[in-house]
């Protein structure tokens, strides 16, 4: 019983990390309409830049924020250089370009930081004891941060002017343009938000995995895809639900079925979803 609860705690934490990244990916899919294979690199960059800034003497929370800002700006610049010129040429060139960009970014990180795992600079934290249950602090912290970030995103999309413009652009770009929304600027803002959220997702991923590697974002990407597709692509709220299911699926599968397959459980969920219900659990625009 306690083992099951323990597994559930880690499942929820994994789900929270996936969830946050999935929300970011959904946001950019909502306005660009292509599946961005380079999204995982925003996670990697976020984690590595945070470690870099901590190394430069910033306290961890400040380092995370600066890292998010830097990755957000990087996202806007990369989109301007690589994706914007292809926007009118159908989705295949965008898809292939995003794969190419993923290889470029991932290997630039490897060239600069080396391929050995780097420990994430987190202070040691003793777990809480609740009866016979160990409640480690890191998963709780991860869940809290992810929830806060998602609440922030929700408020931004629902109540602010830019959030409403983002939703309008995602819903119907032509109509949004006709209504006087500067869709190019909304697109840039969405790229910023999406990349910055990805960076935070990368930091949380590094916290749950203890160490960071250049390939971390790329290999996590399929898990995020699974969640996004499960929840209904382009729908951030569906993505949150999908992530919880995928996160629990990974942890339960690893604990009770076979520890060797790990992420393969997420891919199996992904494939099942695509076969049974390709539109995802929740449909509709965000």
């Amino acid at each position, binding site marked *: 019983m306690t083992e099951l609860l323990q597994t559930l705690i880690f499942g929820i934490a994994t789900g929270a990390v996936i969830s946050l990244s999935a929300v970011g990916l959904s946001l950019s899919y909502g306005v660009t*309409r292509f599946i961005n294979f380079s999204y995982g690199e925003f996670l990697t960059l976020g984690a590595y830049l945070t470690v870099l800034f901590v190394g430069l003497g910033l306290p961890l929370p400040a380092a995370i924020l600066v890292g998010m800002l830097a990755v957000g700006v990087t996202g806007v610049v990369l989109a301007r250089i690589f994706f914007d010129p292809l926007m009118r040429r159908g989705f295949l060139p965008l*898809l292939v*370009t995003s794969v190419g960009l993923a290889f*470029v970014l991932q290997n630039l990180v490897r060239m600069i930081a080396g391929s050995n795992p780097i420990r994430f600079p987190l202070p040691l934290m003793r777990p809480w004891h609740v009866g016979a249950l160990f409640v480690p602090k890191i998963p709780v912290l991860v869940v809290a941060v992810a929830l806060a970030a998602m609440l922030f995103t929700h408020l931004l999309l629902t109540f602010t002017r830019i959030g409403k413009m983002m939703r309008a652009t995602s819903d119907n770009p032509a109509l949004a343009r006709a209504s006087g929304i500067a869709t190019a600027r909304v697109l840039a803002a969405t790229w910023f938000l999406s990349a910055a959220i990805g960076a935070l997702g990368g930091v949380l991923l590094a916290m749950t995995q203890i160490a960071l590697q250049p390939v971390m974002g790329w290999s996590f990407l399929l898990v995020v895809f699974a969640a996004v597709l499960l929840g209904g692509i382009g729908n951030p709220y569906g993505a949150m639900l999908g992530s919880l299911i995928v996160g629990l699926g990974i942890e339960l599968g690893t604990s009770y079925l076979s520890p060797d397959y790990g992420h393969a459980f997420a891919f199996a969920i992904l494939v099942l979803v695509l076969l049974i219900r390709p539109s995802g659990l929740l449909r509709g625009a965000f």
Partner: protein
Amino acid sequence: MALLPFLVGLLTLALIYGLLALALNLQFGVTGLLNFGHVAFFAVGAFASAIVTLPPPGSAAYLQAAAQYHVGLGLPVPVGFLLAGVAGGVLALLIGATSVRLSSHYLAVATFAMAEIVRSVLTNADWLTGGEFGIASVPQPLKNGAVPASVYPYAYLAGTVLVVAALLALTVRLTESPYGRALRSVRDDETAARALGKPTPLLKLGAFVAGGVLAGFAGSLWTHSLGVVHVGQFVPIVTFEVWLAVLMGGSGNAFGAVLGALVLMTITQGTRFLGDVPLLSGLTRSNPSFVPSLRFVLIGLLLIAVVRFFPRGILPERPRAPGRGVRRGGAVPAGGSGDPPGHGAGTAPAAGARTDGGEESP
């Protein structure tokens, strides 16, 4: 550095990649299927061929090689080659039967995920594949018997040339037949093809399986040329190297695909010498993964550049008389480079138009 052995190795490798590109061209270039998991068919072909031809455990050859594997059937290499094609084809049938009906970018994600599942299974099935360590001592046909070791690479290259040329001829024959025309109709406008009574799901599955068989053959050629096989060889970047070869050579043109592989391998194998560049050698000493990473950066940049500036490739698909001059409806976005509609799948106006509809009801 001996140039000739290097060139022979390069050509053999390029032809094997050419076969992979030929397979992907059949699936994507001709039929428009987005296969992002191509490496899986290559991998099962390689493992199938290796396992089928390895001398059985306990045999004299097994003991002599001090081998560690658990399964080996000791069959001749041609049987391994054929079974590699069967393995690739069966995997493609399994994956294709379930997912080929998915609209294009879902198919890309599904095939990508399934390739990762295949890699995960191959990594964990130690008893069959040797796990992370793989299998050394994969038999090389006729080596030290009919062909002395000194000329072996040349003989292997000659054999590879024959096999790839035969398969190229067969594929061209197939795609120039009415069947090939039906496949292209699926790519250009699936709804219209279905309206004309073409069994589009079956056509797509056929192309997918044929591509799987060809990729399985490529796996066999690869494993016997190296004499080793391990999962680490079959990472996702292989899939995208093959994509690069197809796009660079000219999507939709079988000769272009093989040529693209040749150009690609010349570039990537050429970068092996980057470590000898004086400025870079210092960096290599401080970070051993510097040069390999630089190579992947170059592949990524090349992929981006080809799609953006060179979407029709070196040998573009030849315009076909019935399609020439036929204008599509206003749904075709104005291609940035002024490609004629319906050609140059790199810009994929047809695929783009199709997704716009698919968005609403995938």
